[in-house]
C-alpha cells in the first residue's frame, strides 16, 4: 500500500475515534434529554443553548475533580480498569464500515478505519475484553458493592456472549463471510431492500439485540451498576475522570452495538433505491461525483440507523424494570441460547431448501 493511502487511512481512524468520542459525549446529553422527554420533563437547558454544553460541563468537571484511591485498593489495577474499558470500547469502532469509499482523482478513501476480513470476530473479541475493564476495576476498588457488580458483570457478559455468538453464526451462514464490509455490500442488491438480513434473520435479530442490551449493561440488564441495589456497582469507588471513562465506555459500547446491528441486520450504509438515484445523478454529474454523493448519503444513512438504535436503547432504559440476577441468567441460558441454536438449525434448513433468498451470484462476483 502506498504511504499517502496509509496516511489517509490513519486520518480516517482518527476521525472514527473522534466521532465515537463525540457521539459518546453527546449520548450523555441525549440520554438526559430523551429521559426527560419520556418523563414529561424538559431536561438540561441551562448550560448553553438548549443545554447543549452540558456534556462539556460534565467533562470539564470530571477532569478537574480530585483523584481518589480508596484505602486498600490496588492502585495500578484501579487505574488500569477504566483505561481498559475505554480502549476496548474505542477499538471496536475501528472496523465498522461507516460508508463506501470516496474517490478524488486517483485517491481512494475507504470510510472505514480498517478493513479486516474477520471483522466480526474482531469486534466480538474486543468487546469480550471490555468486561475485563469492569472486572478489574470492581475488584481493585476493595469494596463489596464493587466486587458484586464486577462479578455480576463478568457472569452476565460471558453468558450473553454465547447467545450473541450463536445469533451471529446464523448471520454468517446467510452471508458466508466475516468481513463487515462484505456483509454490508451483500445487503444492497439493487432495488431489493428485502436483502437486509433482518428480513432473513428476524429471530436472530431479536436475540442479538437482547444480548446487545446485556453486553452494554443497559436496563433491563444493568445489574452490574444498578443504583438501587449496588449504589454504583463496579464504579462505586471511582471519582473524577476514571469514573468518566467508565461512563464514556458504556456509551461508546452502545454506539458500537448500534453500529454493528445496523451493519449486520439493517444494511449498513445502504438505503433503498440508491442505485437508481446513482444512475440518475450520474447522468448530470458524472459517475465519480455521483458515487461520492451516494457514499455521503450512505454515511448519513448509517448514522441515522445508529442514532435510531441509540434512541431505542435509551427508550427501553427509561421504560422497563430490570431483571433479577438469577432471572437474567435463566433468560440467557434457558431461553436465549436454545432459541439461538434453534435459529441456527432453522437457518440451515431454510438455506438447504432455498427458502432464504440467496444473494444473486452476479452481484457477489462483481
Amino acid at each position, binding site marked *: 500500500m502506498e504511504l499517502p493511502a496509509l496516511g489517509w487511512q490513519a486520518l480516517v481512524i482518527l476521525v472514527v475515534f473522534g466521532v465515537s468520542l463525540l457521539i459518546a459525549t453527546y449520548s450523555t446529553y441525549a440520554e438526559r434529554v430523551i429521559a426527560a422527554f419520556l418523563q414529561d420533563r424538559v431536561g438540561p437547558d441551562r448550560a448553553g443553548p438548549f443545554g447543549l454544553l452540558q456534556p462539556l460541563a460534565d467533562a470539564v468537571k470530571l477532569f478537574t*475533580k480530585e483523584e481518589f484511591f480508596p484505602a486498600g485498593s490496588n492502585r495500578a489495577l484501579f487505574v488500569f480498569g477504566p483505561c481498559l474499558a475505554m480502549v476496548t470500547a474505542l477499538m471496536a469502532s475501528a472496523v465498522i464500515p461507516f460508508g463506501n469509499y470516496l474517490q478524488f482523482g486517483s485517491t481512494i478513501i475507504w470510510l472505514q478505519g480498517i478493513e479486516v476480513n474477520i471483522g466480526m470476530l474482531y469486534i466480538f473479541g474486543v468487546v469480550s475484553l471490555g468486561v475485563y475493564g469492569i472486572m478489574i476495576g470492581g475488584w481493585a476498588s476493595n469494596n463489596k458493592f464493587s466486587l458484586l457488580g464486577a462479578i455480576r458483570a463478568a457472569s452476565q457478559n460471558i453468558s450473553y456472549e454465547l447467545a450473541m455468538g450463536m445469533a451471529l453464526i446464523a448471520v454468517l451462514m446467510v452471508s458466508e463471510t466475516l468481513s463487515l464490509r462484505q456483509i454490508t455490500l451483500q445487503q444492497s442488491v439493487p432495488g431489493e431492500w428485502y436483502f437486509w438480513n433482518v428480513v432473513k434473520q428476524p429471530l436472530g435479530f431479536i436475540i442479538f439485540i437482547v444480548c446487545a442490551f446485556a453486553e452494554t449493561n443497559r436496563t433491563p440488564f444493568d445489574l452490574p451498576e444498578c443504583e438501587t441495589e449496588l449504589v454504583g456497582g463496579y464504579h462505586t469507588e471511582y471519582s473524577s475522570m476514571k469514573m468518566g471513562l467508565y461512563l464514556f465506555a458504556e456509551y461508546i459500547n452502545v454506539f458500537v452495538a448500534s453500529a454493528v446491528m445496523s451493519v449486520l441486520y439493517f444494511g449498513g450504509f445502504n438505503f433503498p433505491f440508491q442505485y437508481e438515484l446513482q444512475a440518475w445523478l450520474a447522468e448530470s454529474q458524472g459517475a465519480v461525483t455521483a458515487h461520492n454523493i451516494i457514499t455521503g448519503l450512505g454515511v448519513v444513512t448509517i448514522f441515522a440507523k445508529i442514532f435510531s438504535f441509540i434512541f431505542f436503547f435509551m427508550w427501553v432504559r427509561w421504560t422497563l424494570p430490570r431483571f433479577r440476577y438469577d432471572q437474567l441468567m435463566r433468560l440467557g441460558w434457558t431461553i436465549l441460547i436454545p432459541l439461538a441454536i434453534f435459529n441456527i438449525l432453522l437457518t440451515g434448513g431454510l438455506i438447504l431448501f432455498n427458502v432464504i433468498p440467496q444473494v444473486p451470484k452476479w452481484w457477489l462476483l462483481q
Partner: protein
Amino acid sequence: MTDIRVPEIKTVEAPEGVEGAGFFATSLEKVVGIARANSLWPLPFATSCCGIEFMATMGSHYDISRFGSERPSFSPRQADLLMVMGTIAKKMAPIVKQVYEQMAEPRWVLAMGACACSGGIFDSYSVLQGIDRIIPVDVYVPGCPPRPEQVLDGLMRVQDLARNESIRRRNSPEYQALLASYNIK
C-alpha cells in the same frame, strides 16, 4: 410577583474564612467554574420529610435536571454537592461526617430544611442542632420542608459559589484551617 420572589442576594460573597487567593484569576478558572456550576451532581442524603420534597424537585414539575444535577450519585466519590435533607440525629451524625469525608474535592454542602440547618422543632436530646456542628455548610435552605422553588434557589446559590471559586481554593491554608476546625482530615 416574579420580581418579589427574586432572592435577596445580589452578588456572591464567599463564606468568611474561605476567601482564598485568586477569585476571577484566570479565564481557565472561569471556564472550570462554569463547568462545575453546571454539573453539580448531588448526593441526596435524605433522611425524612425533606427527602420527599427533594423527590418533588426531581420530579417533572420542577426538574432539577435543567440545572445539570439530575444524576444523583449515591456514591460519595462521584458527588459534588452533599444535600443533607431532613433531621440528623446524633446517631446519624458520624455517618454524615463520614460521607462528607469520602467525597472528592471540590465538594459543597447544602443543608435543606429546618432540621438539617438548625434542628427545627426537634430541640431534643437525640437530634443534632444543625449539621454545621460537624461539617461546613455552604448554603442553608430554610423551610420545613422548603418548597422545591427554594431548593432550586439554594442550588443556584451553590452554582454561584462554584462559578466564582478559584481552583486553588481547595489547597489554600484558609480552607485547610476550616476543615481542621471541623476535625476533618
